[in-house]
């Protein structure tokens, strides 16, 4: 009986291993359907474009837009490297939103969320996501989807207005979230075939540009692992099928598809990338503290700790150790006070410790009753950041 069971299990495993290769879309004959000089006489398309242009005007001046010309320029550089030509017709906006997301609209507007940037470890991973979104754009999925959804837009607007009125100005139900919700739930619900095709197209672009192809499946795997870590921290099991927002193929199959396609392309003699320095670490460093704060102050400790440990594969830094302490401080489970104190104490031993690490270290020492060292640490914080927003409060603490 047990032999029969193990045989069935082996067959099932083999079937699962075989299915990705069969279902994967090979990145051959995937021509771009959108040219750099595309113009349409179709009234419906023009209507869609006019609506999106109004949206872009709002996004351009939105307080959520991160004023980061160098990040936008870097994003442009990666996309142009992927598609192999300058693309002045494409526009890029980095938006402060902690969710992992990017989108490319039919008008050539691309939105990259800070929640994506914080999770990327190198340029190839960034290229994998941008290549996927470029696939939706150049294969015309975006426009096709807008056409289908245009009929539903009136209903979406009614829902938007009704929801805004019902909830007033409660922070969680305000316009950006509602617009984002409509975008995610309605407009960008590509079907699974389109998602698979965008994956294949993105890998094809990565291959042409010489990026390491396995980084696409690695990026997907990181996201999967983060969600599992998030659930596990709350004693839950992450069930991919429950992710109703996403129309991407189930993650495990997608990771396998991406890896299979990468292997296939590797056998096709794609050229290895020229020795170009990976500029990711340099361009992201000035923003990393802000990006991590956005994530950590969502107080999702499982996800945050996974993210920090993933980034620390390249080495723990002062800011990463400080953020680790912040995760424990916010979670405040049994033993977290001590873990936070250890993380802060470690952070201040590192050369790149941020001023906030000294403040946190000082406050944790104060809690322990070590006043002399606490005051020294808090004074060090004030010396490093005399005009800090909380300087008056820290001075008050020192005086009392």
């Amino acid at each position, binding site marked *: 009986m047990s032999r029969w069971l193990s045989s069935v299990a082996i067959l099932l495993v083999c079937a699962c291993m075989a299915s990705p290769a069969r279902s994967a879309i090979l990145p051959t004959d995937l021509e771009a359907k959108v040219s750099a000089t595309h113009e349409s006489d179709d009234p419906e398309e023009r209507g869609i474009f006019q609506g999106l242009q109004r949206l872009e005007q709002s996004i351009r001046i939105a307080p959520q837009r991160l004023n980061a010309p160098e990040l936008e320029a870097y994003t442009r550089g990666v996309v142009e490297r992927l598609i192999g030509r300058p693309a002045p017709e494409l526009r890029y906006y980095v938006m402060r939103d902690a969710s992992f997301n990017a989108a490319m609209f039919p008008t050539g507007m691309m939105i990259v969320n800070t929640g994506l940037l914080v999770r990327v470890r190198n340029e190839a991973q960034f290229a994998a996501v941008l290549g996927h979104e470029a696939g939706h754009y150049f294969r015309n999925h975006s426009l096709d989807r807008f056409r289908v959804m245009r009929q539903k837009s009136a209903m979406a607007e009614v829902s938007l207005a009704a929801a805004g009125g019902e909830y007033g100005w409660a*922070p969680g139900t305000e316009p950006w979230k509602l617009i984002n919700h409509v975008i995610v739930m309605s407009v960008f619900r590509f079907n699974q075939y389109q998602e698979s095709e965008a994956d294949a197209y993105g890998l094809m672009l990565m291959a042409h540009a010489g990026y390491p192809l396995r980084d696409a499946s690695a990026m997907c795997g990181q996201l999967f692992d983060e969600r599992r870590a998030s659930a596990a921290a709350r004693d839950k099991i992450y069930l991919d099928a429950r992710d109703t927002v996403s129309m991407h193929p189930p993650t495990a199959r997608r990771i396998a598809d991406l890896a299979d396609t990468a292997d296939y392309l590797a056998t096709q003699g794609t050229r290895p990338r020229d020795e170009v320095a990976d500029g990711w670490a340099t361009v992201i460093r000035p923003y990393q503290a802000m990006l991590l704060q956005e994530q950590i102050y969502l107080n999702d400790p499982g996800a945050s700790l996974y993210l920090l440990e993933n980034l620390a594969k390249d080495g723990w830094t002062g800011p990463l150790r400080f953020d680790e302490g912040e995760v424990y401080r916010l979670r405040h489970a049994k033993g977290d006070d001590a873990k936070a104190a250890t993380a802060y104490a470690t952070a201040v031993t590192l050369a790149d410790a941020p001023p906030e690490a000294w403040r946190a270290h000082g406050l944790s020492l104060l809690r322990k009753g070590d006043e002399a060292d606490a005051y020294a640490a808090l004074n060090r914080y004030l010396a490093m950041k005399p005009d800090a927003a909380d300087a008056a409060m820290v001075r008050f603490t020192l005086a009392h």
Partner: protein
Amino acid sequence: MRPRLIFSLLLALVGGCASSEAIMVADGNRIAGSHMTVKPGSTWHKLPASANETSREEVWTWNGPQVDRLTLLPGLPDGKAMVSQESTADQQVPVFRADMTAQDLASMIEVSYRVNGVTVFDFEAIEPVEFLGGAGVRLRYEYASGIGIAKRGRCVMRVVGRRLYVMKLESVANHFDAVAPEFDQLVASARLSDRVPSSAQ
């Protein structure tokens, strides 16, 4: 069918707005179910409770809920969250603890915004303030909550008798300077009855 549905929705919304009550109390207004009183210097309107609020808080507005909102949270016990949230939610606002530092309280406020979809949040100041007859903490901050909508906030807090007392103002940024003096006046007028044990934070 659709026009009727929209009309019904509008009716419900108008009905909701109309149920706010004016607050003009000369001798001090006691916050429901608490030992805290404030004395408004001008007319505020109490908003009907919404599903997002805890049972302990009151929400008032000076110029309409889409312009400004004042939240009064009088005496949150140790171990309770200042917002209504499901225990199984992925992201949680930390519960209040009586031993929280000013930094912890500020973090709790920041998280309360971020888990509710606010993506841009920056403190202008975290500073000591006199509140309810003792040393409290005042937060001044700005945040973004919608395309094109910048907002500012001010929050005054103090722990008394292991309970947290909070007065919080939120307003669209270009209206903030008009309503902030009214808020400051309310904060200055806030009192606790003698029955509450006084222990500074």
